[in-house]
Structure formats: structure tokens, C-alpha cells
């Protein structure tokens, strides 16, 4: 178990985080165009360090969720649900399940990932929005 002291908020680390200018982004390697996991500093293919932040669709699928049954910090009173969701573009995000606590949705449930005004990622369960037709 690793329990390091928390560092500044994700919004303060735009070069590696999921939020840039209040928008959800994913990161990809400028050379290989491969989507990269948040937080990595080198491409998992070419090992290059040039990344670009690309707006993400917000479409995602639930990977796993955990419902808090006790309060760890006052600004997060229980119960609430934290989820891991896989964006349609590939990378995984941590988010708070909005409108929770509801019954835990099953794995694979379509989610919509949004950035709230405070820069926090929130996941809404429900059908994914219609994709634009070609």
C-alpha cells in the first residue's frame, strides 16, 4: 500500500492531467498519435516526450466503482461513489458518480464524463449521446 501526501489539484497539472481550460482532454503522443494514459511522461510506443492535449468526447464506460461508507474529509461526506471509467478514446479517468448514491451501475454502463465548474470530473450514468453520422 502506498500512501503519499497529496499534491496540488489535477487542474494545476494540465500537462499531464485530464482538464485543460475547463475542458476534458485526453493526451496523445505527437509522433505516434497514440492515446496515452494520464500521468505518463513518455510515449508507451516511441518513448518520445512530445504530447498534445486533444478534446475528449466525454463518452465513457464504467470500469469499476466504489461507494464510500465513511467520511474521510468533511468536504466529501459519505455516501458517494468514485468510479474508474474508460473514455471512448482509450484512457481511464477517475470521477465522482453524479446523482449518487444510486445503485452501483454494472461494469460497462455507458457514462458521460463532464468537468464541473470546479474542475472536478463527474460521471453521469445513462445512454451515451448519439454519435454524429458521417
Amino acid at each position, binding site marked *: 500500500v502506498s*500512501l*503519499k501526501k497529496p499534491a*496540488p489539484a*489535477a487542474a494545476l497539472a494540465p500537462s499531464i492531467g485530464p482538464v485543460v481550460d475547463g475542458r476534458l482532454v485526453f493526451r496523445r503522443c505527437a509522433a505516434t498519435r497514440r492515446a496515452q*494514459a494520464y500521468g505518463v511522461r513518455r510515449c508507451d510506443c516511441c518513448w518520445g516526450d512530445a504530447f498534445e492535449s486533444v478534446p475528449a468526447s466525454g463518452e465513457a464506460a464504467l470500469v*469499476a466503482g*466504489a*461507494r*464510500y461508507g465513511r467520511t474521510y474529509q468533511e468536504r466529501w461526506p459519505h455516501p458517494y461513489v468514485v468510479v474508474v471509467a474508460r473514455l471512448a478514446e482509450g484512457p481511464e479517468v*477517475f470521477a465522482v458518480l453524479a446523482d449518487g448514491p444510486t445503485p452501483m451501475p454494472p461494469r460497462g454502463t455507458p457514462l458521460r464524463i463532464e468537468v464541473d465548474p470546479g474542475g472536478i470530473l463527474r460521471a453521469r450514468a445513462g445512454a451515451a449521446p448519439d454519435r454524429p453520422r458521417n
Partner: protein
Amino acid sequence: MSRTRGPAHAAITGCACSVFGRESTRSARELAADTVVAAVADAGLSRTDVGGLVLARSPLQTAADLPLRLQADLSLTDLGLACAVDASGASFVQAVQLAALAIGAGQVEHVVCVFADAPLAAAVSAQQAFSRAMPLSGVPGWEAEVGLFGAPGAFALLAQSWLERHGAGAEALFAHVEATRRWAAGNPLARQKASLSFDDYLASPWVVEPLRIADCAFPVNGAVAIVVSRAGRSDGTQPPVYIHALAQAHAGRTTLTGDDAERPSGAAVAAARLYAAAGIAPRDVRMLQAYDAFSVLGLMALADYGLVAEAEVAAFVRAGHTAPGGTLPMNTGGGHLAGFYLQGATPVHEAVVQLRGQGGARQVDLDGPVLVTGVGGRYEHHAALLLGARERL
């Protein structure tokens, strides 16, 4: 089992632990110093015999809490090895490995490995001590920003995914918890000895669903020290515990769900390396001392180390195979859940107790191989040992 491997070149010759408690009476540094002295005495050695010192640091501590200055505290001079390992729950197993490797390289003859932690106090509960957000994403502060506090939150995600993938429910987690309670009843050092019915378990409050308090480790303040020596170099009265194989694996990513995208796990890779190094198969393992800070980790260890087919793990544990009298004794001191949580030191300590034949009411009749595992971070760092009471497997 292959008998072609040579004799072990290193052995655990000394072992000691401090008094465990939840009161803050001594610092980690003080606990470590006293426990090192006790372990060296247990090995029948003296201060001047010690050639190496390896610290396994708790991630709850800063380097200043358990510094290499401990060498000077103990008046240890002219060491051939002095370092600290920083792999969270895998650190203590790695420390023992490092000691064995240094001995094998001819660097030193006797090395002391020590873990000490003192996160609890009258004003600091276990929840408070372990409430920090785990750095899972690599993005500073992200976890805290979404309320993902404490190790239980991070491992609840893994547990939820594991249960869903196996179509299992609370009874699967309970089976492991209940087995560890039964073992703990025979361990004077264990902290959770009361038997636990399924109804009792269901009444245990949620920490982070699907983990209840009963699914979580029982943290204590305390220390464990181990002396590793070149095989045959101990004149102590304690029977040596031989180190037959060691392995590590580090996947380079956190394990959030254990699903296909995250396979093979670091534990499975470490297992393959360990068995290959020892020349044995998983079926040859006679006992498992696993890192089980959360109940789901005990279940995962059985599968990832190849001891039970993954789909059969829940049924295997429910059938009592890991409990007293079972075919694969596991975490015989109660492990982290019912014994005591001193991170990676807990399983190593219990393996030594068992292979020395000092387990008292919980003693299992065996001479090895005993598999010992350590898990660091969010299932990122894995280290394992194969130990035995005989010089050859």
C-alpha cells in the same frame, strides 16, 4: 518437485518483533533499534558480526522517521551494505531479497532487515492514519479531487471488479476473513481472535463498499527485524530458515480492476519467475503467507501465484482449504486482517515462526516450501520468496 537445484546460500537466522500496540509510546526509529538488537541476539550474533543493514520504510513515514542514521544509533560500524527500500508493502520482502543477494555476491555475511512503523496514537485513529489519497493516476492531486481517499477506496475498486468478474458476493470475501480469524485464535500476537459468523461479517460497517471493516487490515505500531546470513554461518540456537528462491515483478502501472487490459498481473509474473528459479511447480507449495491488507488480496494471491484456478478461488476458500486443517494453510498467524498489519513484515515473520516450528497452537507440520508475498502500491510492486526448513527444496 525438481531436486536438481543446489542448496540455499542464504538463510534467515534471526527474527524478532517488538511489542505491538495502538498507543504511541515509542517512535518507529526507537522500535527499529530495539528490534534489531533483539534479532541479532536471536541469531546468536553480536553487534560486530552485522555486516549490513536494510531498512524497509513504511510509505506513511518520511525518510527522517526511519533514517539510515539508525546505523549510528546502533553503533554499527564498517558495514558492507546500508540502504533503504521504497516499494511500499513489497519493501520488507525486497529487503530480505537484497540481503540474500548481497550475501550471494560475497559482499557481506550477515544482514539485518528491519521494518518499523508507528502511525497510530491516542489522537490518530487507523482511519486517520491511512486516510491519505493513494497516488494512482500519476496526476498530482487527482484522487483527492474526486474523493478517492485512503487505501480502502483504491482497493475497493479492485474488489468490486473482482467480485463482479467472478459472479461472487460478500460470502467470498467473508470466507477469507473467517479463515484468518480461525488462524488468529492460535496466535498470541494476533489482534482479532474472536470468531466471526457471516451475520457478524455483514454487520461490520462499510468502509468503502464492497469492503467492510472486517475486510481491512488491523494496523498496529511496531517493528519486525530479520537477520539473513550466509547458510551455515550461524552459530545460533534457532533453526535456520533457508531462502530458496526470490523474484520480483513491477508492471509499471497501477492495477485498477485486474481485468484483461491489466494482465498478466505483476504477481503472476513474479510467480512464474519464482517457480522457475526454484525449479518447482505451484502444486509443490505447502503454505502461503500472503500480503492481504484487504480480503480481496488474499483471494487474488491464490490465483495469481498459480495455487488455485482463478474461477475456483472463492469455492476453494469457502471449502476451508486455507483454514486450519486445510490442504493449503494460508496466513497462519491471522495475516493482516486478524493478526497485525506491519505491511510486508507480517507474512515474513509468520513464515519464520512456522518453519522454525514455533507456531504453538497454530503450528503446521511442514518443512517447506513456504511462499511469502509482498504487494506494494496499488498492486504495482510484487516481491516473493520461497522459504524452507531444509537446505535443499
